[in-house]
């Protein structure tokens, strides 16, 4: 049976709408009384797993789910061995470098060598500063990254920005955009090659539901 890994959080509603348009109803995940992490579509042809955003590519890479939806940011950070089969267009955000508004630095290149950069996306941050050939110390955090510069622990942060509101409210300004991110439909490569569980037909059905972008 087709198994789909869906991310908890901001993308979930759009993901469920997309699969509904392709004939699979996983809206039970949106019901606030639901505690189940694995559900079957009412027609019994597919099931869905509800997992943390960073775990979606893990389930897909290991083949426990043949399809999943993950942000490009997560794929860039984890570099999983999964097939990126479609850009879904929703979930738009950007990965940015930000500093305190009062900071003298106005571009990433101006940051002094060996300064500290706090981030949840340590690989993205490391890759970016390596490409700039600027040695920095990356401080891994799990959330509330904005506190890095506010408390003085780090000079800068690398974090996801969608509206820019959180940065502004915390007195930070965006210096650079590393990349822009949208949600991607990902597939288990071997299942995709072998067309396990009619995977390609399912992707075809989702195509009809993906909004042009």
């Amino acid at each position, binding site marked *: 049976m087709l198994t789909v890994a869906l991310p908890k959080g901001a993308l979930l509603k759009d993901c469920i709408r997309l699969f509904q348009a392709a004939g699979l109803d996983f809206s039970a995940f949106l019901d606030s009384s639901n505690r189940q992490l694995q559900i079957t579509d009412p027609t019994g042809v597919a099931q869905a797993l509800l997992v943390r955003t960073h775990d979606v590519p893990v389930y897909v890479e*290991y*083949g*426990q789910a043949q399809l999943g939806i993950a942000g490009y940011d997560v794929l860039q950070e984890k570099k999983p*061995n999964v*097939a*990126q*089969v*479609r*850009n879904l267009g929703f979930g738009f955000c950007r990965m940015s470098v930000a500093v305190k508004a009062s900071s003298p630095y106005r571009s990433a290149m101006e940051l002094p060598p060996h300064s500290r950069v706090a981030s949840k996306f340590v690989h993205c941050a490391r890759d970016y500063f390596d490409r700039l050939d600027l040695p920095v110390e990356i401080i891994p955090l799990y959330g509330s990254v904005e506190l890095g510069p506010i408390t003085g622990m780090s000079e800068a942060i690398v974090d996801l920005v969608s509206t820019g509101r959180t940065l502004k409210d915390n007195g930070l300004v965006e210096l650079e955009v590393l990349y822009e991110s949208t949600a*991607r439909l990902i*597939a288990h*490569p*071997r*299942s*995709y*090659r*072998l*067309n*396990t569980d009619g995977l390609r037909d399912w992707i075809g059905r989702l195509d009809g539901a993906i909004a042009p972008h």
Partner: protein
Amino acid sequence: MIYQPPTGARDLLPIDVAQKRWIEHRLQDVFQCWSYHHIITPTLERLDTLMAGGAVRPETVIQVWDAEEGFLGLRPELTASIARAAATRMVGAIYPQRLYYMANIFRRQSSEQTHGQHEFYQAGVELLGAGSAAADAEIILMLADALTHVGLERWHLVLGDAGLTRSLLWDFPKPLRTKVRAAIARLDRVALETLPLEPVLRERALNLMDLRGEPLEVLQRVSQWTLDDYQRTAAQHLKSVVELLAGHPSVTLDLSLIQTFDYYTGLVFEVVSDSLSGQRVLGQGGRYDQLLGLYHPQAQTIPGIGFSLNVQDLQQVLLGSLPQHLPVSNCLVAADSIEAVAAAFRHAQQMRASEASVRVEVELELRSPSETRTYAQHRHIPQIAWVNAAGSVTIETVSLT
């Protein structure tokens, strides 16, 4: 202090070995029936030898420094070693040469996957000096025979053609070619959609990424592309191979099946298990017509093709049908006194000599008769031979409940 093996290494206890041997014996039977000969190459090779083909990256090799030899590496696969041995040591050999191996290989996993295993076991074959479609078919048919012989019922074969796919990639402008190739190898459609390609080339790249399915149908689709002579010949060769494999179910032709680094020049393939616990790659292989030339003193090349099976993956998939118990002793020989021990050893030796593959063990601790019986029962030994100092023997049947 607790002594443990290094991360990624593991001990194979007797039952693991029994299961591994069960598989290897069956594979070896098949290889020998197809007239292949066993070859053993060194575990350590010079790093240059391992990397000459361009398919092995130095960071994946476990390296050993030797003051005289320089950098050596533990082999991460056997094909490079066999190509070296054939090109330099088998001068004047009559071709084709049919060779097989059963060996351990070592791979350093990247730091991201430190949990990964370092030592693996492979059983494989190399067919050197034959470049025909029949040679390709022999390798695939023998692979199918080997899998049937170990009792695997369901599996998929994914076929590709590294030479044809590489040649189809030549249409892309040079600066983008490696990116297109990498995107196709990773099945990254989104990357192909965003590369700065002309619409015609983008269409072609997207088509190439989805060039897979039932083999003859895929070849039919390819034949409608504008192909040059090399590509037409390659497609024709592939068609001949596919026709020779007729009747073997579950073959997918996938012309996007390429690696970002490899030495393959023609047919490439993967065997994937079809089990409920997920799909595992049980084996892989391909044709390498330029590899031997890299090792030959006059750069004279000889075509080659081979496959390797991942023994541990086979063991995982076959677990239910593998031996679950170690073989038991057929007889326990027990001396009735310390003076009778020499006679007990003589009798045990007579039993071993009189019958093929009989397992006889001698009771070493001079246990009492009742303790000896209990021991035999625990070990499921069906028979005790009591020996006295005079050398006379009394056979007792052990009641095994």
